[in-house]
């Protein structure tokens, strides 16, 4: 039976790799001197990061006033970036956890870097709620710890407090999940390392892993549990992020469709980002045989589905605004499409509604360059989605006397660039210094087509 099904399928990994080949191919990336492309990438990312650090330091030293916010629009780039990065962070866990639970074997080539991406994206995201505070040095007040103030606790009713719990839980669980997944590979790296330093470091990281199957047995149970926990977590985190808006009183925010809308959007943007990164990584590191065109195609299909949900959400918002008979709500949506920020709205619609439609065509799905370009558009569109939700809802809400507008300052733009710098710096360092493909897991699917592999 297996043979019948599998023979009509492409193998998960191209090039008839042996087990040693896999070890060598992945580990060689870590041993080799990086390619020129990697160096260009890291220099660009580091300079972007530096720009971001300068911008954020200046902002913390001077005040939030260096952003373009005002008394009416209290959030703009900061929370847009936050939601954007949290969204990006969703694909990683989704690929590694949900696809694991669904026994999708094709995930093995990409899950490691997708998880890494999740963690880096969540780190990028986590920075924004901290720096967006007027007094970030008191940010720890959002944690309920015993104190001499009475004691005074925190407001558990605040969506921002929920965010604190959700984002930190998400970061901790994702990082744990990532690390647990890497232990066998660390051991592999340790065992073939010639460099003493490397042996020592990976020796510690691999906590003495030696391939004992009794450990493997429990390890797989643990991995399954973590995957099972991460799945509802990933849904809950973006649901909580959407509560930042959904539980408010502002028309355009106060919307019950936000949780599914946000989760779908997050997966949508996350998959686009994973695709962009994978395409870069396989090109720069020569891993075309591991991250195959089939992987890319599979992911574009997910983008079509989530893009469809996002489209439905946009339509639902307008429908509900009309159906509710609430004038303020109707105004906000008319204002979104026709008001001063309509350009942002139409960029969003263009990128998020039209782009995925190209993926209906197999030729486009299998054209790496086109897929890369289209995923970039999806990411732009999803950034604008958050911008549109936040800024257009705020800038004209109830009292016309308070209406205002918003335009970003250089500091805000630099901070956004800086967050990309941080993300890519971390990611490039990761693919250089860590096994970016799950060696053990790839080995287990080498023989997916049947017995063989000898």
């Amino acid at each position, binding site marked *: 039976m297996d043979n019948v099904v599998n023979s009509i399928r492409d193998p998960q990994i191209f090039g008839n790799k*042996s*087990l*040693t080949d896999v*070890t060598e191919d992945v580990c060689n990336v870590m041993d080799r001197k990086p390619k020129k492309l990697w160096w260009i990438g890291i220099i660009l990312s580091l300079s972007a990061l530096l720009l971001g650090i300068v911008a954020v330091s200046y902002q913390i030293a001077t005040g939030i006033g260096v952003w373009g916010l005002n008394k009416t629009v209290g959030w703009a780039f900061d929370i847009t970036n936050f939601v954007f990065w949290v969204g990006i962070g969703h694909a990683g866990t989704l690929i590694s956890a949900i696809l694991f639970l669904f026994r999708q074997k094709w995930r093995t080539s990409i899950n490691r870097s997708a998880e890494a991406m999740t963690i880096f994206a969540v780190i990028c995201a986590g920075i924004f709620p901290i720096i967006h505070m007027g007094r970030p040095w008191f940010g720890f007040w959002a944690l*309920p710890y015993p104190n001499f103030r*009475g*004691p*005074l*606790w*925190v*407001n*558990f*009713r605040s*969506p921002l407090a*929920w965010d604190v*719990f959700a984002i930190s*839980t998400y970061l*901790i*669980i994702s990082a*744990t999940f990532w690390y647990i997944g890497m*232990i*066998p590979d660390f*051991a*592999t790296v*340790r*065992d*073939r390392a010639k460099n003493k330093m490397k042996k020592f470091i990976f020796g510690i990281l691999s*906590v*003495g*892993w*030696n*391939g*004992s*199957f*009794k*450990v*493997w*047995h*429990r*390890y*797989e*149970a*643990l991995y399954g*549990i*973590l995957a099972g*926990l*991460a799945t*509802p*977590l990933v849904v*809950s985190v973006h*649901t*909580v992020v959407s*509560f930042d808006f959904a539980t408010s009183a502002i028309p355009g925010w106060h919307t019950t469709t936000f949780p599914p809308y946000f989760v779908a959007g997050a997966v949508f943007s996350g998959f686009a980002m994973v695709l962009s990164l994978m395409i870069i990584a396989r090109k720069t590191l020569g891993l075309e045989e591991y991250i195959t065109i089939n992987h890319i195609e599979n992911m574009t299909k997910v983008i079509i589905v989530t893009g469809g949900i996002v489209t439905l959400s946009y339509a639902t918002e307008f429908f509900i605004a009309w159906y509710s008979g609430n004038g303020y709500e109707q105004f906000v949506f008319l204002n979104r499409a026709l008001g001063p920020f309509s350009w942002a709205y139409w960029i969003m619609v263009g990128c998020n509604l039209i782009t995925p439609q190209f993926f209906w065509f197999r030729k486009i799905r299998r054209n790496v360059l086109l897929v890369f370009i289209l995923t970039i558009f999806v990411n732009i569109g999803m950034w604008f989605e958050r911008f549109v939700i936040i800024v257009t809802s705020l800038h004209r809400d109830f009292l016309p006397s308070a209406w205002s507008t918003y335009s970003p300052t250089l500091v805000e733009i630099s901070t956004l660039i800086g967050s990309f710098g941080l993300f890519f710096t971390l990611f490039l360092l990761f693919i250089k210094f860590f096994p970016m493909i799950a*060696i*053990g897991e790839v*080995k*287990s699917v080498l023989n997916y087509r049947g*017995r063989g*592999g*000898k």
Partner: protein
Amino acid sequence: MEKYLVGEFDNEYDLKDAVSAIRNDGFIIEDAYTPYGVHGLDNAMGLKPSRLAKVCFGFATLGLTVALWLQYLLSAVDWPINIGGRPWNSVPAFMPIAFEVTILFAGLGTVFSFFLWRKFKIAKRNYHPSFIATDNKFFVVIYKGEQRKPMSSAIEIIHQFHGKKVEA
């Protein structure tokens, strides 16, 4: 090395078959060493399912209880503060945090338990300095003693399944 017999294989299928055969012959399989988690080897070795799932459930329950109880205690009992006219015990508003804490407790608790099982050191002992089970080789370790058949029959089985005995 006197206590154990170590056999080496090139692929998971040989290992799996050999382990089943050796076990059927009444040998005690101490452990197997593989570069990845071989599907079905647990059955071949006769390992019981892990109890981690139960542990996880326990921690999850603890997390849920702690989160709900703490939120109620701190918002409604310790210092009740009127926040936007909301009820002292705003249960729906406490749910997101309760959920997150549940997951956090469950995840960290399970991982903690996993490591606790071998005192935060996964390797029990190293049987042989030269075998490395993290690249492309599969090993089986057979405990000497208490077996019904002589060790040579185990070595035979190993050979039968394209394996070889690892010399000390």
